[in-house]
């Protein structure tokens, strides 16, 4: 060492330095407290060995020596003598929450906007989440839901394939005998329809099915009394708890005899728990045996061509090893093998539709499943996600805007010894607190909104208090939102240099506002798309509602008949009602004005192309039908008692004339399943089926049997309820066994818009919330900007700016943002709505003015929101704002 000291400092023997990469390696591995002397010693040894063995060998030995230090003893770091900052010390966390609460209380308006906006967004997301959960769990309450199927068929007529659940009567036995191995249960069933159940004086109208005896077992009904085997005898019935309560109250319903539709006596053999509201069988409030149906309708066993009419349903449960697609392929041609050759042109393909797809995926087009209600699930899922996004954006925008005001606090904290991680923890815990408030608040909001929401959405939703998944999602979402919203202030603010912020030279960069502006644009884009969407949906509904119906709906009442009593006394009832001025006219028919229950393929005209398949709706009516409904004849005349030949006369609608392509329809001779008939009149088209589709060809003939539907035209001088009272008293007189129930046609007609109106109501509800949330956010950001520019405004006013100048200056920025949002939103919404409207044959156009109005409306709302803050800032006395420091 002594000799080394004789050398001048900085002298280095040329080329005698050990390789640098090994040194780097050593530096990274050897712990700091060994590093200096160990590496010094190594270098010294290297120098010695270079002299004695030459540089190459020395380097080699250097590497070996270095490697021998790669052992835990040298690598392990010495623990620091100072205790590291304890990140999660309870004292500090207490302090964070205290400061957070103080900040919240100090800025009440901000806190309110922040928490309320986020809570609204979360509430909407929660409602939609519950709704989606309900939709997805539809029919899942049945234990066998994975194996239950419905037998359905595709039929082709004039090149278009229709899909229907109705199947012919013999199909059940055919499937059972030839393909029985695939099915565990195969049940013929009637449609779910209302029937009168009477026990003593108590009469109730309840819907249910006639179905084969294995139904309770297949549907795994939860029995409250009796067993699943209760339908073996024809004169038995199983009723749901609600029916039992209505008929028997507290008494035991078992073994009691109920009178059904005033004709059959049936014995109660079981009571089951009501089926859940979100299931396809929710209206199955009683189950009667199929054999009873066959007894009541003996004609079905003696039909001349039993394979032709499609009147029934088949529900089945597949065997465990049977596969839906394979069974469908196997039974595809079962109907073709049995029907008459002339019906083969309908190409009936029989298939099974699994229960899991009944509700969400049961829209068929040309024989293929194309979706169904699942589209609504997606639609609302998207809306929910977007509303939530809006709320989160608000939250982030406001918390970042606010946080810049807290730069000094950060400076002080850093000056007294906070490390960065502590500040990050502080801001994250603050946003967690706010989000937790919002979550609690949103639960409250959901509780308040649920009854209203359930009504609009036709659901029975409730908060899943006991579901761990619900809480996990809620908590998970709270944490994620808190983290995302809190991360920007946390990371950004904690990076401040205390000297700068404490000296007051801190200034947000020129581009600090850009993310905020982008977020505002996103918010308004979503809001504008929702508004335009809601407008178009409402316009489409209004468009269809405004379509001329072809008759006057007002004052028209329908009464369904259960027993032949009224039919037998039709003329007496009619005269009595007319003489006491309750009605103008009354008639009987097969189908009500708002629906069609019968169709026929048997009509043939002179020049008919034999390959053309026809499907006419038909309705058997009484003489008075024309006047009751208010037919508008374009040609010919009504049925008349003066002409005996009118029993084979037909009144057709314009669509039928067009379909048959007749030049002079009146007097044209046709055949109906071989029987000659003659057109005597043509009436204007009336909307009977879907108001979104073209009117179907329809023929009317005179009824020679009981029709089942009574239509009454109420005397316009009487109020509806007064007339109904009079009608009821007379109906009761002749048909005392049946509870009177009348339906107003205009209400029935409005029900055709039920689905669309429901969706429109829901979307408008959500868009209103979306725009409200966006405006809340805008309000907050505007007030922040106004506050930030207080001094600037003061200087401007001193130099002579008017209030208008200042208002314009502050508003302009936001107007530009909304305009950009509009430019993005308009084409996006046009694209989606065009796709939606294409589903309807009768559809409105997306007019130009919708966009203009929405744009102007949004602009107006924006201006109103911003102006409040802008004018407040502009009116401020400059002396105050300039003095404040």
């Amino acid at each position, binding site marked *: *060492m002594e000799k*080394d*000291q004789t*050398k001048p*400092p*900085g*002298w*280095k*023997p040329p080329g*005698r*330095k050990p390789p640098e990469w090994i040194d780097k390696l050593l530096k990274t591995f050897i712990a700091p407290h*060994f590093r*200096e*002397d*160990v*590496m*010094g*010693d*190594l*270098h*010294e*040894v290297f*120098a*010695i060995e270079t002299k004695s063995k030459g540089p190459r060998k020395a380097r080699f030995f250097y590497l*070996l*020596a270095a490697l*021998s*230090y790669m*052992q835990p*003893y*040298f690598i392990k770091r010495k623990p620091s003598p100072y205790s590291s900052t304890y990140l999660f010390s309870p004292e500090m966390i207490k302090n964070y929450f205290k400061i957070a609460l103080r900040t919240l209380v100090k800025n009440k308006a901000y806190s309110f906007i922040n928490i309320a906006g986020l809570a609204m967004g979360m509430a909407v997301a929660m409602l939609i989440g519950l709704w989606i959960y309900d939709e997805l769990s539809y029919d899942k309450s049945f234990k066998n839901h994975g194996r239950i199927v419905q037998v359905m068929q595709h039929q082709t007529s004039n090149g278009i394939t229709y899909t229907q659940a109705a199947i012919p009567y013999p199909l059940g036995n055919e499937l059972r005998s030839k393909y029985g191995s695939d099915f565990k249960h195969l049940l013929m069933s009637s449609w779910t329809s209302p029937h009168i159940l009477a026990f003593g004086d108590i009469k109730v109208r309840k819907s249910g099915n006639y179905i084969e005896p294995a139904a309770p077992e297949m549907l795994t009904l939860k029995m409250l009394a009796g067993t699943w085997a209760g339908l073996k005898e024809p004169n038995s019935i199983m009723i749901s708890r609600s029916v039992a309560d209505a008929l028997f109250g507290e008494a035991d319903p078992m073994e009691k005899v109920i009178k059904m539709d005033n004709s059959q006596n049936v014995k109660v053999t079981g009571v089951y728990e009501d089926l859940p509201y979100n299931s396809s069988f929710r209206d199955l409030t009683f189950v009667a045996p199929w054999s009873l149906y066959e007894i009541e309708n003996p004609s079905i066993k003696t039909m001349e061509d039993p394979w032709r009419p499609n009147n029934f349903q088949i529900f089945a449960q597949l065997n465990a090893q049977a596969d839906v697609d394979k069974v469908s392929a196997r039974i595809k041609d079962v109907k073709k093998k049995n029907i008459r050759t002339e019906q083969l042109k309908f190409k009936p393909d029989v298939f099974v539709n699994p229960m899991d797809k009944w509700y969400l995926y049961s829209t068929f087009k040309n024989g293929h499943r194309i979706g169904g209600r699942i589209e609504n699930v997606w639609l609302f899922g998207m809306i929910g996600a977007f509303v939530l996004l809006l709320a989160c954006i608000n939250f982030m925008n406001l918390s970042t805007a606010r946080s810049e005001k807290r730069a000094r606090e950060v400076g002080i904290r850093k000056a007294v010894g906070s490390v960065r991680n502590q500040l990050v923890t502080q801001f994250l815990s603050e946003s967690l607190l706010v989000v937790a408030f919002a979550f609690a608040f949103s639960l409250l909001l959901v509780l308040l909104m649920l009854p209203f929401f359930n009504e609009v959405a036709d659901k029975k939703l409730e908060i899943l208090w006991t579901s761990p998944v619900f809480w996990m999602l809620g908590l998970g979402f709270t944490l994620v939102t808190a983290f995302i919203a809190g991360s920007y202030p946390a990371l950004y603010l904690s990076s401040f240099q205390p000297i700068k912020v404490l000296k007051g030279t801190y200034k947000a960069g020129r581009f600090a506002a850009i993310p905020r502006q982008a977020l505002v644009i996103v918010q308004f884009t979503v809001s504008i798309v929702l508004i335009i969407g809601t407008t178009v949906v409402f316009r489409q509904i209004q468009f269809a509602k405004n379509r001329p119906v072809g008759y006057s709906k007002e004052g028209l009442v329908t009464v369904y008949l259960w027993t032949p009593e009224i039919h037998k006394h039709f003329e007496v009832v009619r005269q009595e009602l007319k003489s006491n001025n309750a009605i103008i006219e009354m008639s009987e028919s097969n189908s009500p004005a708002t629906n069609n229950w019968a169709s026929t393929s048997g009509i043939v005209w002179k020049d008919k192309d034999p390959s053309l398949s026809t499907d006419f709706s038909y309705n058997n009516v009484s003489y008075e039908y024309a006047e009751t409904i208010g037919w508008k004849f374009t040609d010919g005349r009504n049925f008349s008692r003066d002409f005996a030949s009118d029993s084979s006369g037909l009144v057709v609608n314009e669509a039928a004339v067009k379909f048959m392509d007749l030049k002079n329809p009146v007097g044209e001779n046709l055949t109906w399943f071989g029987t000659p008939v003659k057109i005597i009149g043509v009436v204007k088209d009336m909307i009977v089926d879907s108001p979104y589709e073209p009117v179907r060809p329809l023929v009317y003939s005179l009824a020679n049997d009981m029709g089942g539907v009574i239509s009454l035209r109420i005397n316009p001088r009487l109020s509806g309820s007064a007339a109904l009272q009079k009608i009821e008293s007379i109906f009761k007189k002749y048909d005392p066994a049946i509870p009177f129930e009348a339906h107003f046609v205009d209400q029935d007609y409005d029900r055709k818009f039920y689905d669309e109106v429901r969706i429109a109501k829901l979307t408008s509800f959500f868009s209103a919330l979306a725009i409200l949330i966006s405006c809340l956010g805008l309000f907050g950001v505007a007030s922040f900007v106004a506050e930030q520019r207080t001094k600037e405004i003061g200087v401007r006013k001193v130099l002579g700016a008017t209030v208008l100048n200042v208002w314009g200056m502050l508003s302009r920025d936001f107007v530009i943002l909304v305009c950009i949002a509009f430019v993005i939103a308009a084409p996006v919404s046009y694209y989606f709505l065009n796709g939606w409207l294409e589903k309807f044959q009768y559809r409105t156009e997306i007019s130009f003015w919708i966009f203009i109005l929405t744009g102007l409306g949004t602009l107006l709302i924006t201006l109103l929101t911003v102006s409040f803050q802008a004018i407040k800032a502009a009116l401020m006395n400059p002396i105050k704002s300039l003095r404040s420091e």
Partner: protein
Amino acid sequence: MKRTFLGEFEEIVLLVVAASTDPAYGVNVWESIQQATGRSITLSAVHATLYRLEEKGFLTSEMGGATAERGGRRKRFFTITSYGNRALLEVQEIRQQLWQSIPQEKLQSKLSFS
């Protein structure tokens, strides 16, 4: 009496430090041991032992004496503590006793030609 156990190599290192006339540090201890024992020893083994001995209190150290060929790094000079001295003496004493307890004839190196 409970005392810290000295391993064979530790004892040698401790002896070398005690015997060194120059201030002892990694390189010269390493060289002395190799010379004295004729064994080839890695520098890391010497370092590890020196540090362990210091941890056990047999040695103390201070930094100093940077040179150019060390890249300006200082050396760590080790000196033996009184505890270290005592430990060495104890070891020597024990060995002495053991040596003396060996019967004379056994120590005679036997000539064996078989």
